[in-house]
């Protein structure tokens, strides 16, 4: 199969993720879209790794996963605490540093 197809898929997923981040208000959905973008990148890395025949891309993909996992932990904690204080998970409601 043509490896370029993976790249198309990666670009498509990234675009969907970016669009979701920009237009959705719900923090959870925005968060999921960020994950989608990260995974789109992972896909591109792995594809390039395959194309070039070395393992650099795969190593970076693992790094990305580790970072994403850590980010999920922190991000979800923030979202939960915002929801608790504001009774809303909308990113537009949290436009001030204070309550």
């Amino acid at each position, binding site marked *: 199969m043509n490896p370029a197809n993976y790249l198309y898929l990666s670009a498509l997923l990234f675009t969907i993720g*970016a669009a979701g*981040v*920009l*237009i959705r208000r719900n923090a959870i959905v*925005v968060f999921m879209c960020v994950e989608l973008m990260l995974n789109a990148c992972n896909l591109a890395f792995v594809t390039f790794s395959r194309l070039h025949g070395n393992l650099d891309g795969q190593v970076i993909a693992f790094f990305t996963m580790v970072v994403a996992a850590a980010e999920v932990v922190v991000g979800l904690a923030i979202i939960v605490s915002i929801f608790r204080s504001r009774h809303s998970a909308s*990113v*537009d409601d*949290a*436009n*001030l*540093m204070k309550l």
Partner: protein
Amino acid sequence: METLIGLLVAAPLLGAGVLLTGGKRLDRVGHWIGTLLALLSFVFGAVLFTNMLGKDADARTLNSHLFTWVPVDGFQADVGFQLDQLSMTFVLLITGVGTLIHIYSIGYMAHDERRRRFFGYLNLFLAAMLLLVVADNYFLLYAGWEGVGLASYLLIGFWQHKPSAATAAKKAFIVNRVGDIGLSVAIMLMFTTFGSFAFNQVLPQAQQASTTQHATITGIGFMLLLAACGKSAQVPLQSWLGDAMEGPTPVSALIHAATMVTAGVYLITRSGAIFNAAPDAQTAVVTVGAVTLLFGAIVGCAKDDIKKALAGSTMSQIGYMIMAAGLGPIGYVFAIMHLVTHGFFKAGLFLGAGSVMHGMNDEVDMRRYGGLRKYMPVTFVTFGLGYLAIIGFPGLSGFFSKDKIIEAAFAKGGTEGWILGGAALLGAAITAFYMTRVMLMTFFGEKRWQPDAEGHEPHPHESPSSMTIPMIILAFGSVFAGAFFSINDRFLKWLEPVTGHSEGDSPVSAGTVTGATMVCLVVGVGIAWLIYGRRPVPAVAPRGSLATRAARRDLYQDDFNHVVLVRGGEHLTRSLVYLDHSLVDGVVNGTAASVGGLSGRLRKLQNGYVRSYAVSMLGGTAVLVAATLLMRAV
């Protein structure tokens, strides 16, 4: 012998140091310390003088190099002394008359609780003036010059509790500063042109370079003239002299006779080589002198304040000297000769005026004197001899020295000679008029005494002997100095090796000049007698003619300064402030405002919405990626 020159200056300087730092424990002996050190300085001067007399006329100059003050590569300012006949004349005048004034002050200032400080300042004045005349370069001369300015400021404002005295002191200092600018610029020009400050470097070079660097030398001459105008109270920087009468009377005597105002004459005579090489500057000098001698004389005619009348006369007499010095080698010797004789009679007149004030509860208005000759015989006689000397009564010292200057003015030749000679003759007539007026109003006529502000009737009495003895000595000088100097041209031969001398070709004979001077004298005295001697003097000044009123206001010199300089200065500063506000502040504030406005716009981007930040991040990333790709494509 050379060390004595340093000691000459050091003695009064030591006195000033001790008296001004010694504190109250010296109050009881302070005046004796000051007087003794002034006397010591005079003794040093006399020793040096006798030593100098023992040598040949051409080998009389003493040089003494102490140390290098500013040793920078290419810029050597030395502290060194040069004592030649010209300096020697000044040294004897300064220390001699200065010592007499010190002695006089012991009595005059006896009731002043700050007498010790007064003597400290007097000593400082002497030290600065001595430094000025014995310096061997212009740089050190400048130090003395500034010292004189400082000491005069301190002494004129000695009674600083009087606002008028404080103002007068400031005025004297500021006007002097204007002149000082001239001297400093002249010194800078000398250094850039000749590479030195020393007299024995600058002056010979000035003579040689008179054709090649004519413009520069003329510039130096004009700047030196400005300096002399400031110190010697010549038009246009004359306005401080009248107000300087706010100081105690001995100070006036010191400023007018021995120090300060003579410094300008010294400067011009010392820099003779420069002026000889710059005829335009010389013309300016004689013009200033001639204008001032008439100006001062006219002002002197209208003043009712005895000290201010004498101040006008000083201005006028210094005008004679400056004019003579501006005549070049024809006049240098006579300028200095008149300076010395003037030192005697003017000091005598001022001390006499002080003695009169001392007896009259410090009254200075001559309209409230009258008939004092019976009550103050010694003052009357000494003041009278000074009066005869200043108007040029035949045989007294003023007669010889002033006559020589008038002759020299005619000897200048051409139209210029006639104008200058005419001005000098007219000045002699006016001098006779106003001095006779002072004499008649003070010592003759009926009593016009009035009680002072506290209601004390004046009880005129002769002053103590500490005051009368200096007056008597000065009166001797006023009578005999001129004749002594003139017999066998003694003074001329003494000073000629330093200043040079040439006889001009006068269109009129010496006898004619003397005759004309005598006619002027008689006319002046006669008119004064008609107005003030034959008729009683009104105790309150009449309104007077337009000319009288103008002269009373010093011919509107202060008004002129106020309108032209003060107002002009105010307008200048106002427009500068306006420029500062509109242009400089405009640029600064405009920059601040535009930065502020821009950041106000930028601030709106920070709206707190996460999604808008995400857009900017995405946009930024897109731009970066695009740029990277573009770079690669190129």
